[in-house]
């Protein structure tokens, strides 16, 4: 069973628009939700993350909205730039001490058109 689901699979927006990437999860014990972005031929890099004690996390143009009741979260990228074109992975893990198992979604490929 897929523990973390992402939608859409691909997304195209114009420069300056807001891109919205969605993520949902199964296990209510997950307590850490990082988003990674990955550029072609590079490894994934941690972009932004949230813990369920908050329902919103902002970092510049990137904002995570979190709905614990519905087990959903979304990544909003405002004023999208061509340099934001990448594949975005939503992930989830449980336990903030010791070993954690990380589950990744299948990713959303974002293209920002100038």
């Amino acid at each position: 069973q897929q523990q973390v689901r992402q939608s859409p699979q691909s997304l195209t927006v114009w420069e300056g628009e807001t891109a919205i990437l969605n993520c949902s999860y199964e296990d209510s014990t997950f307590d850490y939700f990082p988003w990674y972005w990955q550029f072609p031929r590079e490894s994934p890099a941690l972009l932004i993350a949230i813990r369920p004690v908050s329902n919103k996390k902002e970092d510049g143009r990137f904002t995570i909205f979190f709905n614990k009741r519905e087990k959903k979260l979304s990544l909003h990228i405002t004023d999208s730039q061509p340099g934001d074109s990448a594949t975005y992975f939503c992930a989830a893990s449980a336990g903030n001490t010791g070993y954690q198992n990380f589950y990744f979604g299948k990713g959303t490929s974002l293209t920002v058109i100038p």
Partner: protein
Amino acid sequence: AQTIHQWPVAEIKAVGSPLSLGCTIKGKSSPNLYWYWQATGGTLQQLFYSITVGQVESVVQLNLSASRPKDDQFILSTEKLLLSHSGFYLCAWSPNTGQLYFGEGSKLTVL
């Protein structure tokens, strides 16, 4: 600051040949270490994890093995490569506080 280094950057190997990929982390003692595999355009599949030297747990069976000979080193290997082993292999480390950081990856092409 912690750094993670993988080697080699890329390999082209024949089906049936052996493989060894390595990963070293500096600046952090006793990290949790992970191996992930990513098919081209695919998601990240966790293969192995290790909490301490000499201890490795397998998550999926892909005819691969892993070892942790030193606190800062994680090795992925197989004696016989399959076509299905092609992909991007990523070593990662976690500081036990939730975050996961990836190395630069090793691209493997099996012909």
